[in-house]
């Protein structure tokens, strides 16, 4: 039998994650239980003050807004990405189209947000366009509201949803759709009963890839959102840099992490229940397969 080098291969990434993820998040967790220093920083004295501040009505409102904005952005992203990924997977020009999806990454994220300001702004392209056509009279305020945040969030995460969807749809056996129609299904029945269940993994990945980063977004609500569209990320930054209440910004961060993790766990549970037996069976067969492989080696 060959020696198992698995742990050795995993060591570099384990070190990296420990140093730059586990340690910082532990520091944040620790800071959230300390007293705030006068000019930022912390005083090394245990306190629950930072968590007491979380029950504040304003904070709860921002939490709710964060959930609403990121859920809406995720749903819209999915609705746009699914048909697009399907189209790309079936297209003769899929490589070119995939390339086009990736092109925006060549430009810095912040610059792309500023581009949206140039489009949606008071003297931006959209306003000028509508004025020229005579549809509007005078400038319309498109920026600094929840809609602008959603538009830019959708724009930002569309490729992240599109790529996993594309990769599962591309592997999908399209003769299954023909089989469904042959057996009496209409086009939409074929899509809902055969296509969607078989690309479930892609859909779940796309949802996670969109929802988690959108939930923690800071730059987008900061730049295109207004006073009524704060997200948790925005106030974490404000508490850290402006108000300089480090314990509070830490406790909000902890809350954000807990909320995201809880959301993902619930989501995974739903996923598992939908195809519970399938998954378990799959896991069992994978284990068996691995055992056989090891045995062979």
């Amino acid at each position: 039998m060959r020696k198992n080098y698995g742990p050795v291969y995993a060591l570099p990434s384990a070190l990296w994650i420990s140093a730059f993820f586990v340690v910082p998040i532990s520091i944040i967790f620790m800071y959230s239980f300390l007293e705030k220093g006068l000019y930022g920083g912390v005083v090394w004295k245990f306190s629950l003050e930072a968590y007491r501040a979380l029950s504040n009505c304003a904070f709860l409102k921002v939490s709710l807004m964060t959930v609403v904005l990121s859920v809406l952005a995720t749903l819209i992203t999915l609705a746009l990405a699914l048909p697009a990924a399907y189209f790309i997977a079936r297209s003769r020009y899929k490589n070119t189209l995939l390339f086009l999806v990736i092109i925006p990454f060549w430009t810095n994220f912040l610059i792309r947000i500023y581009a949206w300001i140039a489009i949606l702004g008071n003297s931006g392209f959209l306003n000028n366009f509508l004025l020229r056509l005579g549809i509007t009279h005078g400038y319309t305020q498109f920026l600094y509201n929840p809609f602008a945040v959603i538009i830019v969030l959708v724009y930002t995460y569309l490729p992240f949803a599109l790529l996993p969807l594309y990769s599962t749809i591309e592997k999908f056996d399209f003769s299954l759709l023909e089989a469904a129609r042959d057996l009496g299904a209409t086009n939409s029945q074929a899509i809902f009963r055969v296509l969607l269940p078989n690309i479930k993994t892609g859909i779940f990945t796309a949802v996670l890839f969109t929802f988690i980063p959108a939930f923690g977004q800071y730059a987008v609500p900061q730049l295109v959102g207004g006073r009524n569209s704060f997200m948790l990320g925005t106030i974490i930054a404000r508490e850290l840099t402006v108000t300089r209440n480090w314990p509070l910004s830490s406790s909000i961060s902890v809350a954000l992490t807990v909320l995201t993790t809880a959301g993902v766990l619930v989501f995974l549970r739903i996923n598992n229940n939908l195809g519970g037996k399938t998954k378990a069976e799959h896991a069992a067969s994978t284990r068996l397969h691995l055992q056989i492989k090891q045995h062979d080696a």
Partner: protein
Amino acid sequence: MKGSQIKIEGVSKNFGDFQALKNVSIEIKKGEFFSLLGPSGCGKTTLLRIIAGFEDPSGGDVTLDGASVLPLPSNKRHVNTVFQSYALFPHLSVFENVAFPLRLKKLDNSTIARRVGEYLQLVKLDAHKEKLPDKLSGGQKQRVAIARALINEPSVLLLDEPLSALDAKLRQHMLLELDAIHDTIGITFIYVTHDQEEAISVSDRLAVMNGGEVLQVGTPSEIYETPEDLFVASFIGETNFFSGTVASVEGSSALIDAEQCGRIRAFMDKSVAPGDHITLAVRPEKIRITLERPDQCDKGLNCLSAAVDEIIYTGFLSKYFVALRGGHTLRVFKQHVNYFAEESKIAFGDKVHVWWDVGDGFIVEVKRL
């Protein structure tokens, strides 16, 4: 007899510049097991897809019991398909795969359970109904696909090379089962295959296709014993070809000067005139091989002398490759009756006589100069 009569009338199909089907017309009878046989790319699958409703023909019509099916989408046709790759739904159990068409019709659970049970029994899969498709063997998947295609009680079942993914032994077995299912259900089967043995052993009638055209339609024995076309003769079974010019015509037979062996006599299944250039086909098992020259050589037999080049012993028969005087090789198959007393006496290098009945040669091609 259940099932439907299908008429394919002048169907053609173009993919860009490529003509996949050229004016194909076939009439398939009610309840028939009909095969479309041809090499890959001959248009047989395209024809099947047109009947199923996955492709629209560029011209012509397809009718089921006299009514055109072309205006109907595939989900409205009383036709179901067994796909080459089975196309089982990987997220559904065997039971749910078979139940899929019934669920679409929103039948109640007890009806679904009863009917799925019946069809799973028909294909002998009732023990595996909770399994997912990827836990099944190839033969089992095949059965699920058949049960699923039958449960809607279609009047025509289309089978697109359903056995090509199975190994040879299983293929024989499934073929017999398909035949049994056809006898039980009694609907029309249209079976697409490139395997001539499958087509011949199981079909009531078959159409041989090549290059988008139907070359011959007939019962398996008609196709094998009386091929009308050079391609049909060469595609189905093994054949010896002689090419030559018609020297003269006497009654129902013609004298032919063959390039390979000199003057031979051929039955005129196609009318020929002196001077025509023809190709004659003779099946290897129709040719006899003996050490002695037979007596009837001048009365209705074609006799040639040859030398044994090679003998391939295959168990129940031997294949002799004999060189004619001109150097041309002729294949002769002889089934073993008493191997040690008879067949083993002919050995490599022996001078032998090969001979066949004039009626066993078929003119498969005529070129008029």
